[in-house]
């Protein structure tokens, strides 16, 4: 029992790091496109780790499948919304930031 709790704590701490990094990217990155990178990728990995941590703690298969579905749906929604925002920005002529 203690081992699973330890793994869960480890995974949740990891997810916290990615959510923080994603938010930091949202604040620090120079333009819309770069910010979308930070949001989609860091947050998806963060959520994936939360889901994994909760899966280890769950005691029924239905919960495991539900958690997996939630992650997949958020993945699809996140990627789709990011693409739609980037496409609108492209069509409105937003030039990406350059170093």
């Amino acid at each position: 029992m203690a081992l699973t709790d330890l793994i869960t704590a480890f995974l949740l701490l990891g997810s916290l790091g990615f959510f923080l990094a994603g938010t930091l990217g949202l604040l620090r990155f120079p333009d819309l496109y770069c910010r979308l990178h930070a949001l989609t990728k860091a947050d998806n990995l963060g959520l994936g780790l939360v889901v994994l941590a909760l899966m280890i703690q769950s005691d029924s298969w239905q919960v495991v499948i539900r958690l997996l579905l939630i992650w997949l749906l958020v993945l699809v929604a996140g990627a789709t919304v990011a693409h739609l925002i980037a496409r609108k920005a492209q069509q409105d002529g937003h030039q990406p930031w350059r170093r």
Partner: protein
Amino acid sequence: MAPQTSLWLRFTLRLGGCLFLWWVLTGGRPSSWIIGVPTIALALWVMNSAPQNPALNISFVGLIQFIPYFLLQSVRGGIDVAHRACSISLPLDPRIIDFPLNLPAGRAQIFFLNSVSLLPGTLSADLVGKTLKVHVLDHKVDPRLHQLEFQVARLFNCPLRGGDD
């Protein structure tokens, strides 16, 4: 199969899929159907209004190979962007690059578009004809989109063609 029968079959499969999804997500709580039934009706209407694709043809072997590839790339993507966000020097050198698509239009292409955004350093920005505009965080890093395209083609059992047709 007559076209009428296959239409009904498709509708039944979609309805069944939606009902199952809602049931799993809500744990089958009766009161949740107050939201569930209108949501499912809306989802079916949207699916019906979208252009209809031929039957799904997913390769099992392709799926088994795609899942670990995708998970590994997602982890790399998350670590990569987290590292960039936390670095004092903010190591970014973004560009929009053109990627000529070799996948046929439809499901495989949309799947590819969404996967691109979850891979390290790439974001699918716009689709113009058969060219995908990809925003990359660092243009000096090879985004390896051909590798992803190969994986998606194998997953959907579809051929990769040149951009000529």
